[in-house]
């Protein structure tokens, strides 16, 4: 009975979102205040019913209701309670409900934090998001209903949650990734509303920017968590594999990064308006494409959900409809979005444009590599190919290098027009210092320095020094350094943090790729092997009993210079309900390097195969990502958005009062 209530809640949410997709938009077109004012209550209703559906699905998991097919496929009585609740997003149907609920959450947030915007604009934004909700809920009800029953003969116990998902990161990675991903639909709706109303000015950019920054910052967290999880869970010591399902969020992230920079120029200078809108459409389209790739089963991937052609067709149709109609609207309306001001050929605008070019080219190249196998198969009549990491690295690494060079100059260049003399005066010392130290430091610290290390350290120091130089110039005429630092705006600190994060992530990714070493060995208990400066002694294994698994746990004693340094306990687990084996790594994580051990399988004579890795600087990748995300969040909290809101609210209430007065005449 309870699951039917969930189904009922879903259908009610569908009905309300259909109303939301029509009435407020029509109201905005016909200037009908009553219809427009329905947007907020309808949004709240959609969110409430989606929440009820989600809670009921979680309740079915907690109460072991295996008559629900989705619960039977993804849970088991022995599953710990925290995985039972989070198993809601452990498979296609439930995760899509969760995804849709996230959309509802963003809609509610827009409804609440939009008091300062004109009613007409809010009605359009919520109406467009309502239309998206219609598509998502229809998809669920038609092809992937999480409340479908396994009747008349429900299984006595469930098939258990996929063993590889039973990990702490599973509790936090999908929510943050989905939240970031779905957040881009807010920006998309803002862009569509701007096209519909033909109004795209600095005020629009100011309303849009916090949402774009928030979605992008959260997506950064989601991506970083995914990378960290893959690193410690999959057991091959990698942190990014250019897997077809990893790539779409990366594409969205890159387009999102381009968009928040372009949006900055739109707000400050009134330029790149139609380009910003196009980026918003592309970023959102790439998020839908990610959904399509993950859920249609067309590509081979670590992440792909089981395939079902009808789902693929539905999503592709939805994708075509959304992208098609938004591009048509763009084509009709974009010409009216004129730039208000021009800019010189050497200005911050030009550097931002170059930034956008690089990010868009990088994301297009990743898209090409991701879709190429699919296209090749279709064109060649079934021949299968795969595109490996060498392709993606060959494209991505040089582009990020150019981006790093620009990242030093961009913030120093002035809006509108900047002189070469100004840049030279600001940056000559920076260039000398970063090239000098960039060569000397690595050579001093290590023997045998590859060119790639020197390039990495020069680029990293270049950005950091340019950043310091910019701060120095900005606070030069303040009485004290502290007063100067206080005078810098929160969004400036946001940018600085995010750029610093980029430096850390870039340096970590490059250095760990250059200096990681690994060794796969077969060891008898008592035997040891050496790697780098460390000796790894395998002491043997012992059985361990977990809540829903049994494991062999190895003891590996690591010593350095004859002194015991650390003991690691990697496990080979067998999840009893599903009979699935997984590896649990033993990791000693430090800021400067990770020691990483993974257990293979036993031989009859008692020996175990295992792989040992030393991964210098690998943690910098994720520490840098945290900085990037924090930078985005900082930018959202800049008080200029709030101050503006108060003034705006006053202005809007005045103008609507005027309108009402005019209307009554």
């Amino acid at each position, binding site marked *: 009975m309870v699951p039917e209530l969930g189904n009922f809640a879903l259908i009610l949410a569908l009905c309300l979102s259909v109303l939301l997709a029509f009435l407020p938009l029509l109201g905005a077109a016909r200037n009908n205040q009553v219809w427009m004012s329905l947007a907020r209550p309808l949004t709240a209703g959609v969110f409430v019913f989606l929440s009820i559906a989600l809670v009921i699905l979680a309740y079915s998991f907690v109460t072991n209701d295996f008559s629900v097919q989705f619960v039977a496929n993804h849970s088991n009585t022995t599953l710990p309670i925290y995985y039972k609740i989070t198993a809601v997003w452990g498979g296609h149907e439930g995760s899509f409900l969760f995804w849709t609920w996230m959309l509802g959450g963003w809609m509610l947030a827009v409804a609440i934090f939009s008091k300062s915007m004109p009613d007409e604009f809010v009605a359009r934004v919520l109406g467009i998001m309502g239309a998206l909700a219609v598509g998502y809920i229809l998809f669920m009800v038609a092809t992937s209903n999480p409340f479908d029953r396994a009747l008349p003969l429900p299984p006595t116990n469930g098939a258990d949650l996929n063993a590889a998902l039973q990990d702490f990161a599973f509790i936090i990675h999908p929510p943050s990734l989905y939240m970031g991903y779905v957040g881009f639909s807010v920006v998309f709706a803002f862009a569509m509303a701007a096209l519909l109303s033909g109004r795209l000015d600095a005020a629009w950019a100011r309303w849009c920017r916090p949402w774009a920054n928030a979605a992008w910052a959260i997506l950064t967290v989601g991506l970083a968590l995914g990378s960290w999880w893959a690193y410690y869970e999959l057991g091959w010591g990698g942190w990014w594999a250019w897997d077809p399902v990893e790539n779409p969020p990366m594409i969205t992230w890159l387009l999102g990064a381009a968009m928040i920079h372009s949006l900055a120029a739109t707000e400050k200078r009134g330029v790149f308006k139609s380009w910003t809108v196009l980026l918003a459409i592309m970023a959102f389209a790439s998020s839908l494409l990610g959904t399509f790739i993950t859920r249609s089963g067309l590509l081979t991937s670590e992440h792909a959900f089981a395939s079902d052609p009808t789902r693929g067709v539905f999503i592709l149709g939805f994708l075509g409809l959304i992208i098609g109609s938004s591009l048509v609207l763009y084509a009709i309306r974009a010409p009216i979005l004129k730039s208000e001001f021009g800019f010189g050929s050497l200005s911050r605008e030009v550097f931002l*444009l170059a930034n956008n070019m690089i990010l868009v080219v990088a994301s297009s190249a990743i898209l090409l590599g991701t879709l190429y196998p699919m296209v090749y198969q279709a064109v060649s009549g079934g021949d299968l190919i*795969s*595109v*490996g990491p060498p*392709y993606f690295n060959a494209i991505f690494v040089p582009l990020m290098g150019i981006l790093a060079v620009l990242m030093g100059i961009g913030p120093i260049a002035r809006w509108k027009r900047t002189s070469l003399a100004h840049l030279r005066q600001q940056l000559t010392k920076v260039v000398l210092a970063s090239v000098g130290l960039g060569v000397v430091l690595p050579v001093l610290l290590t023997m045998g320095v590859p060119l790639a290390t020197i390039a990495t350290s020069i680029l990293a120091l270049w950005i950091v020094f340019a950043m310091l130089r910019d701060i120095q110039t900005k606070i030069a005429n303040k009485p004290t350094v502290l007063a100067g630092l206080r005078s810098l705006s929160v969004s400036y600190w946001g940018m600085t943090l995010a750029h610093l994060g980029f430096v850390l992530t870039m340096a970590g990714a490059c250095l760990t790729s250059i200096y990681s070493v690994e060794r796969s060995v077969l060891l008898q208990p008592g035997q040891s092997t050496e790697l780098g400066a460390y000796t790894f002694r395998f002491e043997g294994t012992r059985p361990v009993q977990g809540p829903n698994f049994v494991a062999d746990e190895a003891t590996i004693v690591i010593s350095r210079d004859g002194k015991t340094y650390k003991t690691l306990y990697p496990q080979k687990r067998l999840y009893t309900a599903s009979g699935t*084996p997984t590896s649990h790594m033993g990791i000693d994580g430090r800021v400067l390097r990770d020691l990483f051990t993974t257990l293979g*399988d036993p031989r009859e004579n008692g020996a175990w*195969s295992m792989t040992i890795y030393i991964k210098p600087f690998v943690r910098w990748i994720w520490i840098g990502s945290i900085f990037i995300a924090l930078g985005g969040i900082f930018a959202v909290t800049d008080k200029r958005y709030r101050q503006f809101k108060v003034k705006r609210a006053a202005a809007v209430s005045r103008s609507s009062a005027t309108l009402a007065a005019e209307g009554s005449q």
Partner: protein
Amino acid sequence: MKPHRRKKLGIILFIAAGLATAIGLSLYALSNNIDLFFTPTQIAAGEVTPGQRIRVGGMVKEGSVEHSQQELEVSFIATDYAHDVRVYYAGILPDLFREGQGIVAEGMIQPDGTFKASRVLAKHDENYMSVEVKAALDAAGQSAPGMPAGVN
């Protein structure tokens, strides 16, 4: 031509040239970095040149897995139930590697007709079969055994 028009044209030309270069370089990188996929039947028919980096997909034949007791090396037979290919791999097999399950191996065919793998992939979800393995079985006219219909 008015100056601002000329500037606009300059920007557009610059963007177009940049995009063309980027697409050219991408396609070049792509052509050098694709791995073709072969089935055991195609390998048996001699369609692969030794030394070419390829992917092979198939099921791990029951009872074919041999672990070396002294070294890391493992060998097994990948089959599409029409033809077999013996795969050698010096590394740690993925967790979901099991006899009777689908795998994809990356590596090169050796002159003696065996396959030396640099990487072996198995799927996370045992109900899910890789597109490549499924294609291999379909091509050999075999249905996939033990594939529950309509899972998920």
